[in-house]
């Protein structure tokens, strides 16, 4: 049985599907018996869903218009 430290160390690769099959199975066995690591995995996945929505981080009001104005002014010089 692999340790919690080992599972946490591999967590990102596991989420990204980069772990080799043997390690993946070992992690899954561990997760079935370890509520703490399961919670960390679940909340990390939720974190990625939250930030993965591109609208969650905002740009300043008027940004696109100022970008356009600046560009057109510079290329028309």
């Amino acid at each position: 049985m692999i340790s919690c430290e080992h599972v946490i160390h591999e967590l990102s690769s596991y989420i990204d599907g980069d772990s080799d099959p043997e390690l993946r199975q070992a992690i899954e066995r561990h997760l079935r018996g370890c509520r703490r690591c399961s919670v960390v995995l679940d909340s990390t996945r939720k974190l990625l869903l939250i930030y993965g929505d591109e609208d969650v981080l905002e740009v300043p009001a008027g940004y696109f218009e100022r970008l356009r104005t600046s560009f057109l002014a510079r290329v028309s010089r």
Partner: protein
Amino acid sequence: MTTDPQPVAASGASPETERLLARIRAGEKGCFLELIQPYARSIYLVANSILKNREDAEEVAQETVFRAFQRLDQLRDIGSLKSWLLQIAVNEARQRLRHRQRHPCVSLDEEFGDEAQVMPRQLADWREIPSVTLERKETREHLRRALERLPPHYRQVFLLRDVQHLAEKEAAQVLGVSASTVKMRLHRARLQLREDLAPVFRKRWKDRLSALWSKS
């Protein structure tokens, strides 16, 4: 200084992109804005992840778009337009940061150690997060601040990989680091952000109890 870009290879480009490239070639410079429009937001966010200053990030975004237009002939594959633009944004932002700090010799890659192992301490379940919660200004502010609290290199990697969804190799190329460095920094960024945001998103048992009591 010329502001007329040479044509870029349009192999594999969508008909819409090919049409835009043809119009840019024909001298319709404004069409360049349409070409980069899908990435304008990403350019700002990446610049801000380095500069942590809205005004500077916006100026860098403007500079990035102009530079990209000037160097369009250097873009070999239109399919990599997004990572190419973000690479220019990273370089422009780093240049501005050096200028701001007036320490041109400080290595931007060694501001802190990468060795520390992050072990989770916040072990409460996170509740399901409805989209209505994410639309709240307060929640967005928590997310923005948590990202700003990350060490710069964790923040930049997280933004490119988990917000902008660049592939590991693309993020490595944009930041000028190895793929293994991207992997390691991303792992730590995720754990640290999770830790930081746990108090915001964990299940609020007390809230639920108060709600029950208020009904009775």
